[in-house]
């Protein structure tokens, strides 16, 4: 098939790129549209066993005993494991993806030891010759529990007399443990600058509100899976859908107490992650079951209810915001108090939320306090711009209200306070070349912002338009890559970033651009922990930045080598060889990359190169969104009529996939805003653990989403990349809340803004 290349509409700021900015066909595309691509659950191996997990029916309980004898006797069962088979891991913290991980907690989350801390917490696992036998075996395992009272929301958990989840937990107060009192509050942190009292005294208007947001899930369509073979020689191979193969290798090493070198993690194609596929869940269990069943490979995958009950959702939160501004529009003071549910183990993204909440604005007097609090829900894990959406929901609603009180256009008000290059954020760092104002301009100029609102379709329908902005840090991190230059002029390119949304294409484009060759002549492949150098995971909006940087340096290395070859060919000094696109020249002598490749054999033999980088220089992403909603005031239902999102992307390498990231982030943000939430009964059972009742948007719930690409190139990146994936989920909830206000005159302070909560806010029920 000849790939079709569509001309891009994206601006290239006058720079003549050959490949960058084109809408090329992704190299893994044909496999994915024909069903041939191998995802984690598609692994089939000789002698494969099937594993299943027994999960706690209680939200909080002590495990008194587990009797597995009947399960072990069931024909077809090859291994049964419980917490006893898992030696406790060390109590130490390491970075994992965008968040950090404590191995002791991680291990307890993978398989409970003496206590279960949420409905769905794993207590045992079985491997059998069929999935149905494994399931029958689970039913034969007898577990005796002493049921304990659960604590199910952050404010309850912070009370002095709250049931305690983790007896050894002590609050880290601004980094120090100052009390020996058992608690559910894992930490309190603070950012402060200036003088709040002075700032509020100076204000002409002050707005103060409290916001409550519910637990939501990443909602990737592919459930967690893992297949492991613990071989007789002690080597462990794991096939899995992971965002971070190297993170997994390290986690497995710590949990299983096996050296890194004995573990190989092979990242399969992955069906979505959004941050939630960094942590290990099934992989260590599959490995232990493999060992115990006599070194047979064991495959495990979750059912959807298990995904919802037991894999990282993101935090419910309570956020209080107080802001003051002068008549001229200048914000004089801003204060926020954020308490995030960590779930069963410390580690909510409250720190990130603290950074996001006021980030788009230049503030002189500011204080932000954040609390990380454990509750009897699954351990919170990263979800696209972790902690950002709920923080921005609070912050941007108050900003909208200030603008309204001052009688100012919401974009004008934001522009007056907008952060620029050189301004310092509340959490410390100084901004590089951000493009926030450019996104405000883009929305202000956009026809959507000026279009008249559609007529309501019935007397009880109200329509409104809302605006909100968002910030995300963006990450750089470590990347490695290697390449083989082939005699036919192509380059086999091995990179180590799991490809969740077309990054193989973008990375190959940057390598092709660097080499001046055709995109089709780069043959990318995702390697594993044994075949390519270390890579941080695919997350934090880092892949196109960091691994793109590696692609560029890999290209430069290839060029250096190619110059050597040309030098041998022409018997001239390599340093004097000129490279222009794919043409190597010396005086009158010229040879193309392809021609030179054909002469590799005679100029020194085969060629391969590799690079490993610790990249720096990521610059945050900022975005401005505008949305039109229609509110049915009799039913409380909110429909999204039109959505436009402008985002500074630095440089759109592959505009289609940049738009795709914006579309996807906005869609998830709309889901979070309108209907997604965990519904627990009073005993802590998750009642809506299915995709029918955990209501993510369907195709009929969304309009086309217009992505406006703003390019303010990052000077630290050879192609100007900034990172795209996360910020689009940050503004939607706030933008929709502001639109609902403009439609109905009611300020929404809860997420989700589902029909029930909207009816309540409207005073109808």
């Amino acid at each position, binding site marked *: 098939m000849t790939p079709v290349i569509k001309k891009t509409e994206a601006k290239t700021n006058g720079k003549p790129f050959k490949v960058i900015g084109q809408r090329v066909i992704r190299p893994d595309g044909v496999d994915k549209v024909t069903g041939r691509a191998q995802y984690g659950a598609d692994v089939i191996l000789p002698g494969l066993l099937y594993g299943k997990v027994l999960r706690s029916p209680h939200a909080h309980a002590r495990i008194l005993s587990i009797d597995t004898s009947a399960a072990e006797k069931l024909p077809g069962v090859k291994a049964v494991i419980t917490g006893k088979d898992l030696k406790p891991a060390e109590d130490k913290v390491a970075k994992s993806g965008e968040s950090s991980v404590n191995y002791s907690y991680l291990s307890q989350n993978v398989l409970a030891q003496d206590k279960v801390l949420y409905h769905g917490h794993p207590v045992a696992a079985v491997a059998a010759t069929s999935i149905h036998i494994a399931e029958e075996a689970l039913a034969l395992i007898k577990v005796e529990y002493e049921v304990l009272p659960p604590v199910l929301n952050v404010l309850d958990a912070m009370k002095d007399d709250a049931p305690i989840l983790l007896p050894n937990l002590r609050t880290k107060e601004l980094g120090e443990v100052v009390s020996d009192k058992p608690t559910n509050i894992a930490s309190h942190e603070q950012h402060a600058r200036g003088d709040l009292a002075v700032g509020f005294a100076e204000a002409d208007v002050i707005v103060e509100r409290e916001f409550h947001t519910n637990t939501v899930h990443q909602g990737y369509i592919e459930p967690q899976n893992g297949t492991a073979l613990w071989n007789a020689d002690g080597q462990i191979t794991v096939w899995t859908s992971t965002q971070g193969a190297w993170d997994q290798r390290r986690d497995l090493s710590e949990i299983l107490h096996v050296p890194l070198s004995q573990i190989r993690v092979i990242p399969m194609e992955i069906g979505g992650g959004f941050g939630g596929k960094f942590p290990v869940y099934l992989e260590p269990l599959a490995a232990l079951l493999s060992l115990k069943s006599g070194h047979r490979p064991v495959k495990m995958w979750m059912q959807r209810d298990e995904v919802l009950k037991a894999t990282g959702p993101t935090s419910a939160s309570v956020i209080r915001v107080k802001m003051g501004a002068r008549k001229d529009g200048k914000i004089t003071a801003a204060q926020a108090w954020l308490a995030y549910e960590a779930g069963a183990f410390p580690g909510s993204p409250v720190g990130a939320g603290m950074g996001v909440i006021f980030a788009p604005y230049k503030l002189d007097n500011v204080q932000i306090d954040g609390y990380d609090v454990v509750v009897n829900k699954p351990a919170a894990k990263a979800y696209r711009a972790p902690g950002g959406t709920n923080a921005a929901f609070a912050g941007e609603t108050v900003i909208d209200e200030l603008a309204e009180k001052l009688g100012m256009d919401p974009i004008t008000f934001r522009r007056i306070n907008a952060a620029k290059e050189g301004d310092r954020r509340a959490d410390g760092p100084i901004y590089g070349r951000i493009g926030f104002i450019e996104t405000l301009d883009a929305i202000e100029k956009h026809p959507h912002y000026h279009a008249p609102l559609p007529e309501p379709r019935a007397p009880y329908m109200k329509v409104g338009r809302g605006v909100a902005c968002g910030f995300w840090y963006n990450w750089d991190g470590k990347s490695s890559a290697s390449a083989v230059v082939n005699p036919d002029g192509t380059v086999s390119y091995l990179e180590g970033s799991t490809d969740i949304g077309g990054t193989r294409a973008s990375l190959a484009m940057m390598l092709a651009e660097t080499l001046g060759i055709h995109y089709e002549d780069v043959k990318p492949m995702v390697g594993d922990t044994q075949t390519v150098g270390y890579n941080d995971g695919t997350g934090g909006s880092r892949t196109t930045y960091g691994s793109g940087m590696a692609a560029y340096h890999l290209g430069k290395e290839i060029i250096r080598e190619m110059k050597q070859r040309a030098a041998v060919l022409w018997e001239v000094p390599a340093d004097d060889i000129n490279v222009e696109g794919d043409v190597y020249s010396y005086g009158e002598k010229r040879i193309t990359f392809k021609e030179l490749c054909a002469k590799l054999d005679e100029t020194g033999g085969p060629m391969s190169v590799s690079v490993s980088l610790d990249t720096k220089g990521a610059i945050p992403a900022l975005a401005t969104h505008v949305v039109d909603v229609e509110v049915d005031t*009799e*039913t409380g239902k909110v429909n999204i009529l039109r959505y436009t999102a402008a985002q500074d992307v630095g440089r759109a390498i592959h505009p289609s996939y940049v738009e795709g990231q914006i579309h996807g982030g906005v869609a998830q943000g709309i889901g979070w805003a309108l209907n997604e939430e965990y519904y627990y009964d009073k005993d802590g059972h998750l009642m809506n653990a299915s995709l029918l*009742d955990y*209501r993510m*948007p*369907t195709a*009929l*719930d969304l309009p086309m989403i217009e992505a406006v690409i703003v390019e303010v190139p990052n000077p630290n990146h050879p192609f100007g990349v900034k990172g795209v994936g996360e910020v689009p989920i940050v503004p939607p909830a706030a933008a929709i809340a502001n639109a609902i206000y403009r439609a109905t005159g009611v300020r929404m302070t809860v997420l989700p803004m589902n029909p*029930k909560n909207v009816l309540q806010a409207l005073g109808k029920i």
Partner: protein
Amino acid sequence: MQAFSYVSARTLSEAADILAREGDQAKCLSGGTDLIVFLREGRRSAKVVVDVKGIPELNQLGYSPKEGLTIGAAVPLHRIYNDAHVIEHYPGLIDAATLIGGIAIQGRATLGGNVCTASPAGDSIPILIAYETTCIVASRNVTKAIPLEKFFVGPGRTVLQPGELLVALKLPPPKPNSGAAYLRFIPRNEMDIAVTSAGAMVVLDEDKRRFVGARLALGAVAPTPLFVPEAGAALTGQPVSDEAIEAAARAAQAAARPITDMRGSAEQRKHLSYVMTKRALLRAIERARGG
């Protein structure tokens, strides 16, 4: 999922024999969109699954102006909403059939299954009640007819005894100057279970100014789908007016006795009983007037 055996029954008596023999350990399989989920989740148990899709009586779909509509219990929804007679004479049923699940669910799901699952939120039920549907039930020896509003005894429970199966649903021919509509409230726009729903059928006089009769049923506001004769009574004999519709909607709201669960709160459902009744009636009237 527990192990079970599978029989694809070819005749009514074959199915009835197995059901009689195995009692409540035999389960009918129609489209399977409920049964397979229930068995997988352990919410139902079965030793034998009897596939009833191959039984001719359960596969009939026929209309006559005198007899009305007969729908075999195992006719999938996509056949129903593509049927010219149903489209012409029972638009309220089209409302319900096109919103159960998504297209792939509608390729399998049946009215028999929807009715026998007996969910208070089952989308076909309120409108079928409004249409005065009769259930034809058979066992090895007996065939009987039961009005649909008498078919349910609790959430997931019907009057069917072990050994009995639902053969067909019979809808009388539409009365002149009548119209019907089904509306449900869901937070999403598709793929959702009714928070509250209303099925309404109205019969107007020749001038289409006055209600000659009306039937209304609500979904998801009681342990079973709820027939609300008070709503019909509030309309019968009244002129078509905002006041009459308001009175019927208030009667429906008063009859609703919902609970709070993951899909909605009791207060919300109580409120929606009123809103959905009003909207369903307006639509039904519009249809009766030829809209």
